[in-house]
């Protein structure tokens, strides 16, 4: 690492326009980056990390404006330059890697065209020929068939591959600086490991400076030399990665670090509330579940883990009757449930409730909190008028909110509050089984912890059974009694948490568990060594 300064951002202030007025988003942040250095930028959503990252390019999104500060990139003040002046730098000397590769590639052009677009525009010729160089980059990033993958369109390759192609695109002109904006957030853990490893390798190989934006501490620990923590558009603290991980100074940073500490002693029971027996299911002709069997003890939490496409959510759809199975049966309290939703009795519907990942889209935006929670009270239990309102207010207390929320609309709630309302709506039906489909994955870590604690407390008080679908192993450790591991529509194993999470593992469970990043900065290096050996 050399000591010469590549990027020097001083007293950056950025305002964003919402609700008819300008609000400060970044409130005077400094950021210094040397050549070849990787800085991790972490914080919860709304902390301004992505806005600050883009500002390092001298770019502000539509609806945002830079109101103060200077951005010295290699001696040029980007804050004072027009977009036409900055354009020659973008995509050539400063490159950007976006969060959702699937949305950030133009669907109309082949990957290779997009990879070399900026390089060709600038007339650069890394390694002789940009196209040949791109193939070498694909190879270095361990993409399959590097010589032919460029001829494909974005929809023809997987998300993890796209993310690596985007890294190749960023690297093609050999930039001085790359902004990685949550590049692995949308990926499965097993894919994430490979993408992280290839990104780190190539950044080291070309000695490129980088700003790595993420909310996942364990990920940033693998990538960054220094970590800067942001909150509410202000810097909380900055330190070298190892020091930050072992001895964070500020209380906020410590709280971020401590979330993963939630633990629950496992219990099981012979009293089964739900048995899924040899279920097959298909979307049209595509068979997605193969002989799936799961048992659920009453009053306990069964976590279903697996990558996207493993059939977790489809299993939930079969249990709720949204997708009738093509074979096998589902027993609820010992009685078989009719496969079709419309053949189930109201009592059967009432006893199984669901909570969704996106609380936003799971609520009618035109209904108030009172109407949303009151509806199942009327529909299942016949509560009306004052009795209904009283019950809504009780439910609000159960989810640790108060009556002031009664007349609010979903748009007036924070992400965590929305998810709490969805929980209250599920509780209102007085269910026995609650299916939680990735209920915390859209939330920040501290908010996640609050929701998980709430669910655990409610389980203790009311003996609810949870079927908890998630891809996040930390969540699983925190809340489950039993774990079901799924892969490609089949159950790999089911067992007590301690049995599943401790060796010996089936191969897939081993791969899944070992891919979950740990806070140790040497974790990725050790893992890659172990897998190579």
């Amino acid at each position, binding site marked *: 690492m050399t000591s010469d300064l590549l990027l020097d951002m001083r007293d950056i202030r950025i305002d964003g326009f919402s609700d008819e007025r300008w609000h400060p988003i970044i409130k005077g942040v400094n950021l210094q980056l040397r050549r070849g250095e990787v800085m991790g930028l972490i914080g919860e959503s709304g902390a301004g990390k992505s806005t600050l990252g883009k500002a390092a390019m001298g770019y502000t999104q539509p609806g945002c404006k830079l109101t103060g500060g200077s951005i010295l990139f290699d001696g040029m003040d980007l804050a004072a330059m027009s977009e036409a002046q900055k354009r020659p730098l973008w995509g050539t000397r400063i490159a950007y890697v976006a969060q959702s590769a699937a949305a950030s590639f133009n669907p109309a052009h082949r990957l290779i065209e997009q990879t070399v677009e900026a390089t060709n525009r600038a007339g650069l010729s890394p390694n002789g020929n940009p196209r040949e160089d791109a193939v070498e980059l694909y190879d270095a990033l361990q993409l399959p068939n590097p010589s032919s993958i460029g001829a494909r369109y974005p*929809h023809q390759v997987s998300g993890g591959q796209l993310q690596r192609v985007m890294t190749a695109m960023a690297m093609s002109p050999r930039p001085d600086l790359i902004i990685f904006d949550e590049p692995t957030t949308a990926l499965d853990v097993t894919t994430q490991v490979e993408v992280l490893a290839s990104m780190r390798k190539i950044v080291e190989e070309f000695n490129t400076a980088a700003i790595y934006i993420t909310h996942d501490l364990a990920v940033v620990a693998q990538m960054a030399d220094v970590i800067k923590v942001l909150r509410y558009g202000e810097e909380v603290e900055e330190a070298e990665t190892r020091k930050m991980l072992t001895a964070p100074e500020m209380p906020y940073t410590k709280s971020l670090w401590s979330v993963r500490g939630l633990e629950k002693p496992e219990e099981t029971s012979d009293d089964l509330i739900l048995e899924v027996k040899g279920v097959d299911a298909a979307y049209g002709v595509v068979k997605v579940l193969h002989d799936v069997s799961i048992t659920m003890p009453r009053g306990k939490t069964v976590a279903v883990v697996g990558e996207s496409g493993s059939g977790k959510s489809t299993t939930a759809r079969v249990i709720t009757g949204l997708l009738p199975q093509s074979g096998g049966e589902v027993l609820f309290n010992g009685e078989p449930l009719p496969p079709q939703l419309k053949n189930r009795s109201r009592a059967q519907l009432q006893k199984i409730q669901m909570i969704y990942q996106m609380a936003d889209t799971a609520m009618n935006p035109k209904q108030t909190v009172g109407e949303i929670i009151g509806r199942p009270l009327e529909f299942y239990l016949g509560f009306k008028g004052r009795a209904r309102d009283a019950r809504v207010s009780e439910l609000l207390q159960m989810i640790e909110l108060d009556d002031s929320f009664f007349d609010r609309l979903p748009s007036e709630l924070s992400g965590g509050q929305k998810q709490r309302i969805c929980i209250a709506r599920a509780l209102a039906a007085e269910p026995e089984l609650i299916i939680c489909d990735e209920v915390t994955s859209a939330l920040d870590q501290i908010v996640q912890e609050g929701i998980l604690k709430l669910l655990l407390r409610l389980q203790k008080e009311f003996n609810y059974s949870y079927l908890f679908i998630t891809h996040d192993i930390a969540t699983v450790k925190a809340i489950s009694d039993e774990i079901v591991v799924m892969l490609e529509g089949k159950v790999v194993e089911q067992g007590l948490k301690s049995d599943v999470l401790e060796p010996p593992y089936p191969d897939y469970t081993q791969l899944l568990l070992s891919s979950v990043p740990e806070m140790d900065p040497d974790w990725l290096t050790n893992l890659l060594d172990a897998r190579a050996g």
Partner: protein
Amino acid sequence: MHPVFKTVLKRLGLGVATLFVVSAIIFSSISMLPGDFGEAVLGQAATEETVAAFRDELGLDEPAVVRYFQWVGAVATGDLGTSFSGRSSSGVDRSRPVVDLVGPRLWNTLFLAGVTAMIAVPLALLLGLTAALYRGSVYDRAVNVTTLTTIATPEFFVAYILILVFAAINPWFPSLANVQADTPLAERLYRVALPAMTLTLVIVAHMMRMTRAAIINLLASPYIEMARLKGATPREIILRHALPNAWAPIATVIAFNLAYLVVGVVVVEVVFVYPGIGQLMVDAVTTRDIPVVQACALIFAGTYILLNLIADIIGIITNPRLLHPR
């Protein structure tokens, strides 16, 4: 077989099926017209024998279903039947085949539509793209206001204004667009100048605004921001990154407007006394010339179906997800 080819065949089949349904609707709605065909065509003075002979000749006493299938069967072999006009109460028959009546008129209509399309479509695309490029600017607003004004003005009024300016005050173009089968091409172009201009003013707004909206709609996509962050200029962003993804909605609107040029321009034809198919159909309706009305209606339906089919195909072949499946 490439899946796109299969999709196109499927659409083509659907188009034919639609045409079949439309033919049934045309036939049955014409059957429901009040009054007796024979008397209406031959006039009040016709003798009962003449009318009966006429009815017999046309098979009007047969059940409607039989007549429908006779008609469809004939149309399928290219025989559109014989016009009712030219017959008189005296029994003298100077009637002509429908093909001879409709053919030249259809050609005139297609000629005017083609000339208009060649001006209007490129103009609308150019205006739409530049308006999207300079969105929010004075230019954008000027283009929007102008095109909205022309679309909001009734087409006969636009026609009269153009006649006033370009034929009466400045005698540059003829105010009558009367062409014959043997009119040479240059003369034809000169004569249809004003009707083509009128129709251009009428259809440009819709296509231009859709182009602009389709492009601007895409500008919020993450891949457009990515293109900007890769240093693409505004022009590159519009032409290279947004337009290739916007063809489907643009093609749909163009198809809609081209269909209008064939089926909906009777008012403009009347103003300029242009011998198009619209006037023919209106005349045929007033004289109860059923074979001609049916033929025109079928041509109109076929035009809509064909143009929409082409728009569909453009939508498919410009979508890599459909053209290059996984």
